[in-house]
């Protein structure tokens, strides 16, 4: 199973009872790009990301992650997954949380990597704070730091900037850009249109299928609208 794409999904289908979350989703992400998965709540963004993270098995279609099966990429420590909610151990300190996740990923030089990750999310001075005492935005930053520790080749960020203030959101995106420039491929889901323009390419997703793909400017010009939000609505109606 070889492919030139970091993520290559063809005809993915996934059902939860009577609800079909993915209905033949086709999507390809090139190595080193920031791919934005843009769509409303319930459009299938998280389901797709969970498939890529090896947490859900599609019922139909093919999915290749970093040239192999999703689970193989995850087991090899090549994938970093930041969940929508900052899934951390509230009773442990920031450092203890990061130390734990670093151990799971067999990260070498753990203390150096933890310091590096904390510096990236600007939380070095809170390393000994208990996570339960942190604000929501700080917890999101710790969650991102935990995802970066093992320097994955593919980062899956499920709505990473939800609950993050505009200033910090700006910083997050500058981190994401730096990570992408170092060769890391990123799949970022969002339902905030203004964030989408920061991605190299976008996939507009609705009802479990990709409506359109391209850069923000390509999508706007294809839809003949003035902004991305209008383009999304126009493309959704056209389907």
């Amino acid at each position, binding site marked *: 199973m070889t492919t030139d794409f970091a993520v290559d999904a063809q005809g993915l289908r996934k059902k*939860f009872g009577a609800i079909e979350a993915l209905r033949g989703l086709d999507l390809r992400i090139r190595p080193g790009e920031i791919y934005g998965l843009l769509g409303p709540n319930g459009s299938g963004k998280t*389901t797709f990301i*969970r498939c890529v*993270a*090896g*947490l*859900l*098995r599609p019922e139909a279609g093919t999915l290749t992650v970093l040239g192999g099966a999703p*689970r193989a990429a*995850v*087991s*090899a*420590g090549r*994938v970093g*997954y930041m*969940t*929508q*909610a900052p*899934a*951390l*151990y*509230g009773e442990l300190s920031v450092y203890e949380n990061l130390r734990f*996740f670093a151990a*799971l*990923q*067999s990260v070498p030089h753990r203390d150096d990597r933890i310091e590096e990750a904390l510096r990236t999310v600007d939380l070095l001075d809170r390393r000994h704070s208990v996570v339960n005492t942190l604000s929501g935005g700080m917890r999101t930053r710790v969650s991102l730091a*935990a995802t970066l520790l093992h320097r994955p080749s593919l980062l*899956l960020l499920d709505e990473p900037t939800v609950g993050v203030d505009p200033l910090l959101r700006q910083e997050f995106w500058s981190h994401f850009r730096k990570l992408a420039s170092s060769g890391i491929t990123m799949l970022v889901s969002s339902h905030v249109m203004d964030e989408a323009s920061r991605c190299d390419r976008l996939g507009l997703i609705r009802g479990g299928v990709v409506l359109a793909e391209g850069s923000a400017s390509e999508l706007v010009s294809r839809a003949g609208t003035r902004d991305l939000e209008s383009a999304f609505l126009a493309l959704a109606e056209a389907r």
Partner: protein
Amino acid sequence: MDPHRVRAVAKRIVLGFRRDHRSLGLLFAAPILVLSLVGAVWGGATERVPIVVLATDRFSGPPAVIDRFLAADAIQGRRATFDEGTRQLRDGEADALVWLDSPSATLHIVIEGSDPLASGTIGGAIQRAFTNGLAALGQLSGPKVVIEQLYGGSDYSLLDYLAPVLIAFFAFFFIFLLSAVSFLRERTTGTLERLMATPLRRGELVLGYLAGFSFFALLQAIVILLFTVFVLQVHYRGSLATIFIVEGVLVVGAVSLGLLVSAAARNELQAVQFVPIVLLPQVFLSGLLIPVDQLPDYLRPVAAMLPLTYANEALRAVMIRGYELADPLVLRDIGILLAFGLVMAAGAVASIRREVA
């Protein structure tokens, strides 16, 4: 106070449970289960007739007395030599050993003694059987009676008998509850999803839980032992290491069962409701309150499936009778507990599905 607001709160609670069928089911099923157990255990418990070995090589009374004694309804009499009788007593095959020293007209009774409540009953039954036998032969004056105990003694109390099983019970109860709620928290807070998206294997996760909770279980055992021995002055004979080994294998089952239960519960409320389902049968049937051999026949196979039955038996054997780790009974109980733990651990691994939704 606004009754409308109170009504709104009450209605919210009722509506909240409306869709929680599991909680509603347990709310009614748990008391029925407990009441059924109480009814079955105390309604059908049998007063066990003690097995008494008469040491023929040390019984110098008239043969008719021996026959009358062995045929008495109050006991199940057997004949054996003194040495064989001692062995049977030590191995739990008999409850008492009896012989009569004619020159001194003394009836010697050695009771197994590990259960202080049973000891009194056994001594009484033997004396009754003996004096009834004498009375039937026209002899009214009975011999002097000397009662000794193989284990325990007059300074042993009910607490000495209960302490070993309480150690097992506390370890099982707290570790089961803590592991169930902790793992449920992994599921509900999303950390399990995160863990499953790392190279961590499900077996590694379960083993990590086992190791972590075993550490606390052993600490707990040390605290309980120190408290019972030094504060409550409980008598204790066996090796500390053997107690910890029994405790360790019991905890493997408790943690794994906790993980299994957490897979069946959707929230902490539901997890807590599994406590009576999992623990109460063990309280009633594992020998904690009533010896297993006095349970109604149909409940004994159930008792044989409960881990606390074996932990109680092993810990009592070690702490009261001073059995060593190499004793077949202790080894058998440890083996059964280990097998239970491994089956539960395999179930726990299978219950952790990598799929999160």
